[in-house]
């Protein structure tokens, strides 16, 4: 009886220590949330990228419904992972639109190189005083470059070929 009580106490202590998350575990938890995010890196969640947003969710600073590109699928997935109720999307962050890629109107591009700095995935090719272009296979459709263009020559166009070819066939 006493032996068992001691053992129980020891195990309880061990479990309690384990429950206090080690820093490594926290990183892993952030990674798991990050895996569920669409990696558009648009920053519409008010965080500078998907991983920072994942960290904020884990820290309880952000809600799980602030990712417009992920939409309800992402909300459900995160809710499942964290065992929380699924929320309806926070529309103040933006609407869930079908994915599109940015296209630069090369006739009007003045080569200011401002959009190059905005692109979170280095999908814009160009240099100062040279026309820029978007590598459409790499573009995530975050729309961050649009606001940076002083001559408004960047627009979004619906995704057609490439990685999402199957979507067109459904």
């Amino acid at each position, binding site marked *: 009886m006493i032996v068992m009580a001691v053992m129980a106490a020891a195990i309880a202590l061990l479990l309690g220590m384990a429950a206090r998350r080690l820093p490594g575990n926290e990183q892993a938890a952030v990674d798991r949330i990050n895996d569920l995010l669409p*990696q558009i890196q648009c920053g519409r969640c008010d965080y500078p990228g*998907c991983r920072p947003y994942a960290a904020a969710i884990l820290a309880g600073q952000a809600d799980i419904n602030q990712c417009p590109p992920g939409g309800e699928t992402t909300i459900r997935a995160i809710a499942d992972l964290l065992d929380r109720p699924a929320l309806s999307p926070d529309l103040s962050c933006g609407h869930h639109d079908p994915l599109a890629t940015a296209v630069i109107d090369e006739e009007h591009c003045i080569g200011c190189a401002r959009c190059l700095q905005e692109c979170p995935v280095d999908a814009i090719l160009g240099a100062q005083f040279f026309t820029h272009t978007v590598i459409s296979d*790499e573009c995530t459709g975050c729309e961050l470059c649009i606001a940076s263009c002083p001559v408004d020559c960047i627009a979004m166009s619906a995704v057609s070929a490439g990685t999402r070819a199957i979507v067109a066939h459904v």
Partner: protein
Amino acid sequence: MLHTYNLQPRRPSWGIRAEARKAESTGHAIVIAPPPREVAISLNQSAGRPAVPIVEPGEKVSTGQPVARATAPGSADIHASISGLVVAVEERLVFSAHHSMETAIVIRGDGTDEDFTPHPVANDPMSMTPAEIRQTIAGAGIVGLGGAMFPTAEKLSCGARIHALILNGVECEPYISCDEVLLRYRAARVLRGAQILMRAAGTQRCIVAVETDMPEARVAVHEALETLNDDRIDVSQVTAKYPSGGERQVLELITGRQVPSGGLPQDIGYLCQNVGTAAAVADFFATGRPLISRIVTVTGQGVSRPVNIEARIGTPIAELIAMAGGYRGTPAKLIAGGPMMGIALPDDGIPISKANNCIIAAAPGELMETAAEHQPELPCIRCSECLQACPAGLQPQELLVACRQQDRQALESLGLPDCLECGCCDYVCPSAIPLTARFSLAKIGFRQAQLEERRALHARQRFEAREARLQQQAVQREHELQEQSAGVVSDSQIDAVMARVARDKNADTEKP
């Protein structure tokens, strides 16, 4: 390891028995269609990305001239199937699994059917190296004519050690008889192709698989084999039971070994090719004509004279129907492919592709109506009929539950990607559940989710690489600033320099 092959039929436990209905179209020799007046050749005639056109409207082309080039692995070259004028390169409704509009090259024939002259006349393939043969085959735009349209040259250069080449002449799906008539009337060509393919794949063994219900074809192959006198080639009989002609199924029946889930026949040392593909290879080496035609079965009670036609790629289906004596009455359905896996066509103006093995014009009531069309869907009673019928060894009833729950993990562990969409489960289901349709939809969703995951991973890597670069730049800038601030010259340094300057001056004045 010794490899043995079942040359006598083995009865598979899976599959279904359906009425063959092939006799209607196998009665006549293959009709060779004259070059049509106009062809529309789809650029999407391979398992990979569409080919890129290399001709422009207004250009004159000859028969067999390359008109589009392969772009990536899985993609194949495309050749003009008639001589004439390219009148358009435009979006057309062509034969494809998705009824999608695809870019097609439209050629209006000049009636001469003049061959593309600078085409290399192939020399004796038996004196060529395997790599040269593969290259030649790739240049002929030859793809798997069984329906998957995977480039033959690419399949041949898999790199794995091949124990045997399996030539698949098992045409298990009802109605379709293009492979059967090919074996009946052109067995020598098929075997010639087999020899070339064996050399290209580096193997010394070939099994030609035929069905038990095509005795004439079997006899023809045996006769051709006697003339050829090649003891590396054997004929194996496979039980006529649908879908024993599937690549994995025929392999299992002949070798007794299964292709692992998600794997390819190459993984267990076998290479499977359709008999039509072998004939196309032999034809190319004999005549120099690339893959510009194929045999199509035109059958069904909705046509007057069911027949097998060797037609140019891009010929409108309506012309083939006309060659089969035209419609008899008003057909209820026009199907490309067989009654089990084929797809209904919206109209007969669609041009045929390299994958088109059969056109069925079905009279009203000819085909068993699909369950969903007639009988309402009832709940699953767990009778496990589907389980016994499934040739891939899956559990359709469990898959159905996972489909309803949209449980991706369960779908994957239950082996959804291995579903070949043969329709056997639909056929046997007493509750008339459209299982195959559910599975094909789920498979599309599955692939899409996989692609999405891959895209997200790629974007994340690029984002992280950029973050790392920006951080490194920041660190470097900091470092440079520090260096600059460290470079502020101290008083002692100034003194040292001044002392040196003074010394140099003294030296100068002392010199002369």
